[in-house]
């Protein structure tokens, strides 16, 4: 009789609804701890890319599938060799509905961590040491972020609407005062602007026109940083995505192509002349610049194999030559590479696998020789990585 009652109580405990707890971070030891310090006292002169004296760890932003509200933040700690999954809830237990829906970009600037949360229409601003929330900036359909001086610049698809049969909607770049977290100015650019880069007093914005199938944008917008007005357009190729500046005054611009006649490709634009100087015939989904090396991966649908064809490689930004085709050398198979980063000190390569977009993803770490060092489960659609460290004074 007693056991029956116990069984009933147990049954009720299992069968009944419980309050859902805020997620506690899950810690996984994935590697031996290491201290990443650059012993060279002097930084190379005149580099645009960040140079670190010490790298403590990196944040990884998981996008989460649209509508799932499952964008999450993970952190890798080098000194402990620990991967800490889902840190936002614990750092900010009182924020309703957590980090938000579809994280699209992540950056550290001035001791703060900025996460661009696309479908939550906001930039989440956090302390870069603790991931504690400082505030948010509301920008509808925000995409990518860059910084200059006291301002952050964010691209958004949600510019002014032209009500017509075609329903045109230009995008814009928002200028955010990082001190007040207010949008202080906007500059209208092309349709559906994605990546942006700041070089030589100008903002270069990759217009995609991604909402306009068969009528994509094909230009970079040049915006004057001072007047914050669009100066001109640089024609490149349809459906531009990422744009990044290397240490040689060159912008590397990826084009998605139009999915029909024009293939995806990587373009090089000289900042001095504001003209396309070269192109590399590879389909690039995303890339990471480290010194003179441009690490890229590309996924292109093949109607021959009826599958994604995945390519990896390294381009020397000085010679524009592909110096490596495939930086994974141990046969590790990644189903859907979705994010890339290179450790500025060890040159280890971090690649994320978004798999089928709904299952938890995986983060892989490869050594510079292309051998897998470790891998770890992430959140859904692991995508954007930002290193935390102490930059070198130049």
């Amino acid at each position, binding site marked *: 009789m007693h056991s029956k009652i116990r069984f009933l109580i147990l049954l009720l405990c*299992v069968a009944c*609804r419980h309050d859902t707890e805020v*997620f506690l971070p899950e810690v996984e030891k994935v590697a031996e701890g290491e201290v990443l310090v650059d012993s060279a006292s002097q930084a190379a002169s005149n580099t645009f890319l960040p140079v670190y004296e010490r790298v403590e760890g990196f944040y990884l932003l998981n996008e989460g599938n*649209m509508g*799932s509200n499952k964008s999450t933040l993970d952190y890798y700690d080098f000194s402990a060799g620990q991967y800490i999954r889902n840190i936002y809830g614990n750092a900010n237990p009182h924020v309703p*509905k957590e980090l938000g829906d579809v994280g699209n970009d992540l950056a550290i600037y001035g001791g703060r961590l900025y996460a661009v949360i696309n479908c*939550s229409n906001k930039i989440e601003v956090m302390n870069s040491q603790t991931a504690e929330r400082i505030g948010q900036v509301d920008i509808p359909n925000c995409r990518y972020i860059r910084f200059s001086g006291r301002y952050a610049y964010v691209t958004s*698809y949600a510019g002014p609407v032209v009500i017509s049969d075609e329903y045109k909607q230009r995008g814009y770049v928002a200028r955010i005062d990082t001190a007040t977290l207010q949008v202080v100015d906007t500059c209208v650019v092309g349709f559906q602007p994605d990546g942006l880069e700041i070089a030589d007093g100008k903002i270069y914005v990759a217009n995609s026109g991604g909402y306009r199938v*068969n009528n994509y944008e094909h230009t970079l917008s040049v915006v004057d940083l001072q007047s914050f007005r669009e100066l001109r357009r640089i024609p490149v190729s349809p459906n531009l995505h990422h744009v990044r500046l290397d240490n040689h005054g060159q912008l590397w611009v990826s084009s998605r192509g139009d999915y029909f006649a024009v293939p995806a490709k990587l373009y090089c634009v000289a900042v001095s002349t504001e003209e396309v100087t070269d192109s590399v015939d590879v389909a690039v989904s995303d890339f990471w610049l480290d010194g003179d090396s441009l690490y890229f991966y590309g996924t292109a649908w093949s109607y021959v194999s009826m599958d994604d064809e995945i390519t990896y490689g390294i381009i020397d930004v000085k010679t524009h030559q592909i110096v490596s085709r495939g930086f994974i050398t141990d046969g590790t198979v990644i189903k859907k590479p979705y994010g890339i980063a290179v450790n500025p000190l060890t040159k280890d390569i971090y690649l994320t696998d978004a798999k089928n977009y709904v299952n*938890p993803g995986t983060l892989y770490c490869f050594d510079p020789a292309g051998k897998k060092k470790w891998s770890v489960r992430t959140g859904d659609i692991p995508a954007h990585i930002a290193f935390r460290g102490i930059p070198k004074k130049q």
Partner: protein
Amino acid sequence: MAFTVICAGSLAATAQTVVDSTAIKLDDVVVWGSTNRKEIVPAQRLIGAELEALSSSSVGDAIRYFSGVQLKDYGGVGGLKTVDVRSMGTNHMGVFYDGIQLGNAQNGQVDLSKFSLDNVESISLYNGQKSDILQSAKDYAAAGVIYIRTRRPQFAEGKNYNVRASLKAGSFGVINPSFLWEQKWSARLNSSFNTEYLTATGKYKFRYRRVLSDGSTAWDTTAIRQNGDMEAFRLEGGLFGRLNDGVWNAKVYYYTSNKGIPGAIVNNVWKTSQRQWDHNFFAQGQMKKSWGRYELMLNGKFAWDYLHYLSPDTTSLYINNVFRQTEAYISVANHYSLCDQWDVAVTADYQFNALNADLANFVYPKRHTFLWAAASTFEWGRFKAMGNVIGTHAFDVTDVHRAQCVGKLTPALFLSFQPVSAITLRAYYKQSFRQPTFNDLYYTDIGNISLEPEFATQYNVGATCQKRFGQSWHFEGKVDAYFNKVDNKIVAIPKGSGQYRWMMMNIGKVKILGVDVSAQTEWNLLKDWTLNLTLNYTYQRARDYTDPTDNDPASGTWGGQIAYIPWHSGSVVGNLRYKRWMLNYSFIYVGERYHNSANIRQNHEEPWYTHDVKVGWNIHSLSLSLEINNLLNQQYDVVLNYPMPGRNWKCIVKYGF
């Protein structure tokens, strides 16, 4: 013989007035009797008064009371509701409205929230198929079938018309009048006309809450569901005729709605602005006639559907698309009784579907489907068997693709045996498949023309026990254990906030092991007191065997329970009647589940359960009822980030003469 089978199969009929139930049963005997005696797999059924007693406004709500069923419900008055039976997926279910399948070649999903219960007489669910030999090939083809049957005119002695008006009003700003007029024109011809209007603001409070590990509140937020407003209008007219040794009926159906799509509740987004306009029209007819041992059934249908979807949200992709679907269908079924024990049937169907959309790069697909079925039933004493084979030949033609052809043969075998009069044992094996839909294949940017058909294989064993104890107590219990396998599963992941847009993935293999248990009992307690009690329980282990490499025991999807399928679910319905009074209590339980087959904490969903109560009173031609649903005001999601309504109420007035 036929009479007793039907009587046992429909307990609820006893709750109706004597005149009514006799009429229904007699009619049933005339129309269906010759075939029903060979029913091998019993249906789960909700009929007449039983259906009316439940707090349900749409077919989708009512279907939750069947075992083996999971309803995907996006919440609110106009929220999408699709049914998944035994975890094989919505697209494997055939939903039939007055005998002919409701189609949706575009996405294959029948939104059961659109079908009001106002004029519905019965809902039946068959696992496998209805073991009626005279049926269309489409009746044979699906993995399981739901039959929605609207009320057919019945007239009391000496009366040649029925008029009924009703008004429902309640939470969410619902105002829902309806009108029914039935006329007997001659002994051979009746007509029915029914119309309904619904308006609702769709607003309701919902609450999300999280706690810290010590149980204290971390955050707690309450908001009002926005953009769930709805306006809908339905018109149905039918003619019901008798022939010498036969019957025919013809009907037209029109439904239109204009509704907001409330969307997912995510951080910083508490309101959406998507809208949808629907027009659904169909005209269909059915004729059955017998000549001695030969019986013929003809079915025909023409359907036209219009869907206008608008996403005017200036912060995201502007979408303004119109989809038009056309369907034409014809079926010829032939049945011949070789002898009293042995029947054979041959059926042929043809269906045409076309989809037209104003999407960029759209390919305007058209599909021709030929189906045929050859079936036989055999009855030998207490043993019954039914076997059939279905051939499906379909080809698609589009503006840019060559014809895509599919040709498949799928067999099925059903057996039953009655060792003693109270117990019936059964077993079946069935293969079926579903075609990729037009969206799966051709939707611009999402569609994947390399998709394969999705296969389902079912093995089922079960038993039914029926017993009557004296005059006052009747009991029926059913138990079924089954193993299903779904191969080449096409998985739809919602893309964006629009509920009908998906991203297609032809992944998958699912193995489902399940047990359905149901028990139904009726007591005539004292003079004038009647108690009905129905219990349903479902256990399902539906495991994902898609990706053998994703096999981490703690977090891998390999072997994980598939999305939104609880291990345990069930329902309890109690109905008490005393003279003019009726009290109904219903409880639905859906156990813990995951919204992804990676069964990790982040994907975990808590159980939910609702208690609904309804009180009714009637005198002659007037009936009043009041229902209170989700009595304990539980706050839950059926689908992640789509909050369901808390406590809500409705009152119903019906007047007929």
